[in-house]
């Protein structure tokens, strides 16, 4: 048996979480380094996955398959296609930066008198690693049930991260702040749990249908199910398929999040520390969109096509609505959260446009948005940590005193507004082209997102960084070496992805082709070529 590389990739951070949590209370620096070391090991393992993965090879590679809960037809099945490889790599790459950015975020809690037994610093990093392990696992799982388990279980550590380690900077006094924080954590958990439970019903329904149709009895194996569908062994009644699709989609839409089930995100991102906010939006939420691509389209192609019009409309509403609300925010973290909602609209638009460009674009978008938001949010976090306020109005003229901070903020912001030359441009353009070629009107409506993105990013930049130097900015320190070390590679990555995304598209393209053939769609042919025929 070959080395279970995928399992190792997920186990490494989980192990790291355990080890980090076990570091004694007094040695919190050791805990930080432990966490960082394990996250870097994970990067190494993810790199190994990336190297071993052959873009032109089988659909799922590096597969592992063991019986787990035979009674439920559940197998421990892992495997990666191009999209999953990319997402695993994203997750692995982002987390070390989060650890670096949140290096001191939990220390204040540990300084509190009652906290000696609680060990917040250890807990903070252990929880982050735990989330990472679960996210990685859910990207790699090719068993629906296995996926579901981690899809749900990751809520718990995240919940503690949001509720337990809030952002101290806010517009309210501390007690009110704590209330807001726990409200945000509870809302996050209940929202996602509700989605997950609806999905559970659909998962069970899927099993029941599969158990009826398949000779081998009920199974959750994605490959088996997809193949059985293709061969006609597994058939859904039309209404059954639609209900099942809706059950899955609802959960993913909440996680993604799609309008109108998005409201947990601004709270969660606003109240958590910047690294946790990034963890949520850049990594965890991607599981939702990823799962739409893998499960909704893969398992229920006909229902997906059936639901496309509604999903597209919701995605468009997300794009415009998220952007407009971002414009209306006074709190910069909430602004970024609403911007993310807008961006998730693009991702979902790309997925459901059912074109190669749209889906490749959506996949790239997941990566690029992850990196871009990470950069923007982390720099915003650095800014906030200096002044202790999340309100945009409390800043001004920062570029004068902290030019590096302002500069990196601007670059990250420009990436967020999809400036050509940065990664997000490529993906946004692909999504738009892909959408336009099948749904011109949707493509044009989505374009308003481009303009609005420029508005909210630049207004944010203008209000915080430019203008006369305010009192708050006067004594502001520029980025520390640690902070610079966190941001610079992210920005370099953004530019690399914008200038030379080919390595990524080479990996993603075959997977997208598979998905397209699952759905049974082909790209619309150019009108002029059609006419010539």
């Amino acid at each position, binding site marked *: 048996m070959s080395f279970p590389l995928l399992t190792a990739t997920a186990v490494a951070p989980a192990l790291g979480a355990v080890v980090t949590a076990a570091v004694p209370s007094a040695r919190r620096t050791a805990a930080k380094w432990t966490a960082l070391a394990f996250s870097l090991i994970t990067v190494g393992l993810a790199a190994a996955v990336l190297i071993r993965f052959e873009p032109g090879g089988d659909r799922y590679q590096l597969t592992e398959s063991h019986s787990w*809960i*035979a*009674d439920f037809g559940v197998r421990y099945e892992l495997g990666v296609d191009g999209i999953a490889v990319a997402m695993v790599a994203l997750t692995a790459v982002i987390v070390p930066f989060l650890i670096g950015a949140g290096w001191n975020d939990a220390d204040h809690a540990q300084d509190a008198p009652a906290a000696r*037994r609680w060990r917040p610093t250890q807990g903070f990093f252990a929880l982050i690693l735990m989330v990472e392990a679960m996210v990685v696992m859910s990207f790699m799982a090719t068993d629906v049930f296995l996926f579901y388990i981690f899809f749900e279980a990751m*809520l718990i550590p995240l919940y503690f991260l949001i*509720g337990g380690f809030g952002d101290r900077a806010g517009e309210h006094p501390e007690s009110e702040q704590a209330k807001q924080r726990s409200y945000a954590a509870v809302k996050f958990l*209940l929202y996602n749990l509700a989605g997950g439970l609806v999905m559970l019903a659909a998962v069970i329904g899927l*099993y029941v249908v599969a158990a009826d149709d398949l000779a081998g009895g009920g199974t959750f194996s994605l490959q088996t199910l997809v193949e059985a569908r293709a061969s006609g062994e597994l058939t859904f009644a039309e209404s059954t398929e639609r209900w099942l699709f809706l059950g899955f989609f609802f959960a993913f839409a909440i996680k993604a999040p799609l309008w109108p089930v998005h409201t947990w995100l601004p709270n969660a991102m606003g109240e958590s520390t910047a690294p946790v906010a990034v963890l949520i939006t850049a990594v965890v939420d991607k599981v939702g969109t990823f799962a739409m691509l893998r499960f909704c389209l893969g398992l229920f192609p006909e229902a997906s096509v059936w639901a496309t019009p509604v999903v597209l409309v919701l995605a468009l509403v997300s794009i415009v609505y998220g952007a407009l609300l971002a414009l209306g925010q006074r709190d910069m973290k909430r602004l970024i959260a609403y911007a993310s909602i807008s961006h998730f609209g693009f991702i979902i638009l790309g997925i459901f446009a059912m074109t190669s460009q749209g889906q490749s674009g959506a996949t790239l978008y997941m990566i690029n948005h992850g990196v871009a938001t990470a950069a923007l949010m982390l720099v915003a976090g650095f800014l906030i940590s200096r002044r202790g306020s999340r309100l945009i109005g409390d800043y001004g003229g920062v570029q004068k005193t902290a030019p590096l901070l302002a500069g990196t903020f601007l670059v990250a912001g420009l990436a967020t507004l999809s400036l050509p030359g940065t990664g997000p441009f490529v993906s946004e353009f692909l999504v738009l082209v892909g959408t336009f070629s099948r749904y011109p009107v949707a493509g044009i409506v989505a374009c308003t997102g481009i303009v609005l993105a420029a508005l909210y990013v630049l207004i944010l930049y203008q209000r915080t960084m430019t203008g006369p130097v305010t009192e708050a900015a006067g004594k502001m320190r520029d980025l520390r070496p640690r902070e610079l070390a966190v941001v610079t590679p992210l920005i370099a990555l953004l530019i690399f992805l914008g200038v030379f995304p080919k390595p990524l598209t080479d990996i993603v393209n075959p997977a997208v082709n598979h998905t397209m053939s699952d759905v049974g769609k082909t790209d619309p042919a150019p009108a002029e070529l059609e006419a010539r025929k």
Partner: protein
Amino acid sequence: MSSDVSSLVTLAQTEPVFPEIQWAALSPTLIVLGAATLGILVEAFVPRRARYATQLVLSVLALAAAFSAVIVLAVGDYGTSEALIAGAGAIAVDGPALFLQGVLALVALVSVFLFAERRLDPAEHGRPVDSFAAQPAALPGGPAEQQAVRAGWMTTDVFPLLLFATGGMMIFPAANDLLVLFIALEVLSLPLYMLCALARRRRLLSQEAAVKYFLLGAFASAFLLFGIALLYGYAGSLGYARIAAVIGGTPPELDPALAATMGNDALLLIGGAMVLMGLLFKVGAVPFHMWTPDVYQGAPTPVTGFMAAATKVAAFGALLRLLYVVLPGLRWDWEPVLWGVAILSMVAGAVIAITQTDVKRLLAYSSIAHSGFILAGVIAVSPDGVSSALFYLAAYSFVTLGAFAVVTLVRDPQGEATHLSKWAGLGRRSPLLAGVFALFLLAFAGIPLTSGFAGKFAVFRAAADAGAMGLVVVGVAASAIAAFFYVRVIVLMFFSDPQPGGPSVVIPSPLTVSVVGLAAVVTLVLGIAPQYFLDLAGQAGVFVQQAAATAR
């Protein structure tokens, strides 16, 4: 038993035939009941100083032996191919019975540890005290009680009571005869009524709980008994097999003279409904649930834990056997009714729990909701349904025990601090304990990787497989509502600041530690690697149906 007893009476004139009792097959129950009787003798004859140790050892040994006996029987294939109806048709020894008896023995064993915990409160008059009143009949705090405490009168009789109750519970799901069912019900209930009244602290609440439990329990058993009478009237027998045969329209021998009275459907339906009601009372399903919160709150917490875990197991076992063995022919009659009960239980339990402020009441309502979930599996009427319900019961009972064990540890000077507001910030003071409690809550909520999820999944899957998708959807919705209050407790423990003068967590003896630890381990194991136990439950999913299967 009785049908054979009657034939014995009529046949006595010709040749005396003694019924064959398969002692070995009945050994688990017999061991427990025997030990209980022995425990009474211990109370009578062993010196006071040695009683605690003797009773503890006796109970533990008895329950361990009973568990071993169950294992031996199971290994001997009594659960599957060798299943039989022992005791002249009175008691079934089959998969579900053995599985549940095993679970019950374990639960009782663990509960004994909780009963025996004596380090939670400071010693009074130089003597370590447990959760039970020295002399419950005396006025709380009165001179009689003072004297009792000083004299070191210890309520070591709780152990035999527990054993009796356990014995009754072990018979309950195995009963293959309505009369045995009734007797087992009373044998398990009566000791519990008494145990409820024994709290050392908050005696008034404890007594009130006992009175309510007793009166309502007796009320319910009266219904049950009347139902039994009607069923007897319908089928002319108290034996499950015979009744099932009559319902199925294939009575082995039909006396034409009796045709007029037998097979009267009204008797069958009314009787069946009333028996059902008696059992639903025990499982705490809406609308027969109202005793649950009060009794759970008032009873001494170790008793609550035992009661919540074990009674539910036993009662569901009996319910399953009744529905699957006796009433499958009536499936179309009782199924809609149980649908209603299940939905009501799930929704009402979850909704009312939202606003609870006492941990024990909260868990009580949670148990009501869980009854609804298990009922969803029961309704499936398939081997999957049985095994999923069995698995759920096993998983649930340990989570419950663990949760109540934790409740015993969070104390302030007035005793257990069960009011939720006092739990604020517990996660910061005692992260480990709060973490374990959070684990139990998450298991209740059905979060993956805990036993609660595996159980819920199994039950819902069985229901969906049987076409009860609507029930699954309601169950899912109820789970979402339920998640709200579990999460609320977690928020309180972890995200609220500790109150000054709040409760502290007592460092318990290894007894309670082992309970909590075991419960946590079971919760995780059943969540992460449930396959072995699902297999067990799966093998135990078939009821022995006919007396014909009796070992010859």
